[in-house]
């Protein structure tokens, strides 16, 4: 029976129609379906698609010349560089953490595992502004570590290290939460077999574990990178907004916008919107192509 009503359909194959729809008893009349689909798509259209379209339309409102001038302006290029730096450090740091945490949590039994898993997700439930604030409390000249560090000539706040720290904080869970459920599901049989055949721990990890988690790893990195490049609130608190020095791309957008250079603001914003689109495309490709090798649950 389960086949007849489409239970065994791959749920990530939306193009294959679930045969259920022809079973009148457990479906809706055609006009209801059409009405619901229309309503849902109109909602998505108004709330999601129009803002995206608006970014690109506004960016080119004053013509291509203004657009390109805004993008190649020295401050924009400096902001882009800082954004790339913060994003790459965040990805590398949280990737390393994600692998270590997932290895410990998924492959071993220990007390407090559930608590640790919850704590890893903590940064997601903290306001970005508070994520920035915590580093102000530590590194400002009135903070715990600030005075000592400033005495030794190390400036964390209102300089790139603070921006990087805040970005690492807000992107903290991305890789770990993709890896943990997947590696838990995979168990330890393959690793045990490799070890019993004489492979070293590192060999086991690189030749057995890593290949089986590579797509989930890429998925986590993709989301981590998108958030790192787009982070605004946390970075805004610790940045100090020094043009050309401590501005990331989203902060540069804000500055241009507040100066009423709308076309330029949207031009820089369109770069970030382009990044978001690329992220969505790659993410969807990963989900369609490697559904089985990503975490079983489709969650965020």
């Amino acid at each position, binding site marked *: 029976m389960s086949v007849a009503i489409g239970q065994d359909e791959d749920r990530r194959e939306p193009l294959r129609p679930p045969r259920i729809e022809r079973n009148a008893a457990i*479906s809706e009349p055609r006009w209801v379906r059409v009405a619901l689909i229309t*309503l*849902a798509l109109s909602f998505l259209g108004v709330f999601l698609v129009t803002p995206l379209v608006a970014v690109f339309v506004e960016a080119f409102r004053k013509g291509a010349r203004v657009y390109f001038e805004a993008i190649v302006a020295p401050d924009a290029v400096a902001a882009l560089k800082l954004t790339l730096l913060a994003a790459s450090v965040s990805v590398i740091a949280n990737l390393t953490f994600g692998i270590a945490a997932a290895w410990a949590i998924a492959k*071993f039994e220990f007390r407090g595992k559930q608590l640790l898993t919850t704590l890893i997700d903590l940064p997601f439930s903290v306001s*970005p502004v508070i994520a920035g604030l915590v*580093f102000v*409390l530590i590194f400002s000249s009135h903070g715990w570590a600030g005075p000592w560090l400033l005495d030794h000539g190390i400036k964390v706040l209102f300089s790139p290290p603070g921006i990087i720290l805040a970005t690492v904080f807000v992107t903290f869970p991305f890789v770990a939460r993709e890896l943990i459920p997947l590696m838990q599901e995979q168990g330890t049989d393959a690793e045990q077999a490799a070890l019993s055949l004489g492979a070293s721990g590192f060999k086991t990890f690189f030749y057995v574990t890593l290949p089986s988690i590579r797509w989930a790893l890429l998925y986590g990195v993709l989301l981590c990178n998108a958030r790192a490049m*787009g982070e605004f609130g946390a970075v805004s608190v610790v940045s100090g907004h020094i043009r050309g020095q401590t501005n990331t791309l989203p902060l540069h957008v804000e500055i241009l916008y507040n100066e009423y250079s709308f076309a330029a603001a949207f031009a820089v914003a369109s770069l970030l919107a382009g990044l978001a689109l690329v992220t*969505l495309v790659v993410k969807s490709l990963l989900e369609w192509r490697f559904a089985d090798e990503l975490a079983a649950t489709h969650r965020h």
Partner: protein
Amino acid sequence: MGQAPDAATLLQRLRRPRSVLPGFGIALGFALTYLSLIVLIPLAGVFVRSAELDVDQITRVLTSPRVIAALKLSFGAAFLAAAINAVFGALVAWVFVRYRFPGKRIFDAIIDLPFALPTAVAGIALTALYARNGWIGQFLEPMGLKVAFAPAGIVVALTFIGLPFVVRTLQPVLEDAERELEEAAASLGASRLQTVVRVILPGVLPAWLAGFALAFARGVGEYGSVIFIAGNLPMVSEIAPLLIIIKLEEFDYGGATLIAAAMLVVSFVLLLLINLLQAATSTRRKRT
């Protein structure tokens, strides 16, 4: 881990996991150190700092009309936006799980746009749309609906930000829902509406609430998309995260920290609730 083991076995278990795999100590050690340094200790700082303030100052900050107005606005707007998302998110999830239509894959990918689009970009785009001369605002303004630079704009921004939380929490649970139960209900004479309300709804309720809570929690703390569209008028359209920043800029670290602590407490309660709801969801899913 069913019954509580005595201290000796507990210690042994902590120290030496029963596994032949290497690297437990170093992996867990690194993970815990990193977690503590980046997340736990900095967050604890908010509460330590708050505790250092005297009672007078705490009451003065937390009862000041401006702070109360900001907290009310942040929680109220987030609640409203989460409620809108609960309704439309459920509709979207239902349509994507149960029906087929052209362009489904593309729309399904676009649902995640708010996760991928930087909040500042969303903020200026929404402001442009809902401003008096914007694509959407030009129709709303003559009807007396002022969205941009008004509290309604905050709800619009938070609806944009929160939508995927409801859809993505509900989708997998709806997909797993047992169609046999619906067939049984139908064969016993239930109308389609009765089946949806009394058979499907109870099964997806925990996930639905979890999605609502996730959207709500995200909305309460949201900053980037809101500040452009809100107008940021004190007492009217000034959200709590913005007030934290204003206090920081005035070097009122105590005030900023207290608002943050109040928001964190609520976030942690929400996180606990979400975890309980998701645990309920996953046991339900495992049973099926």
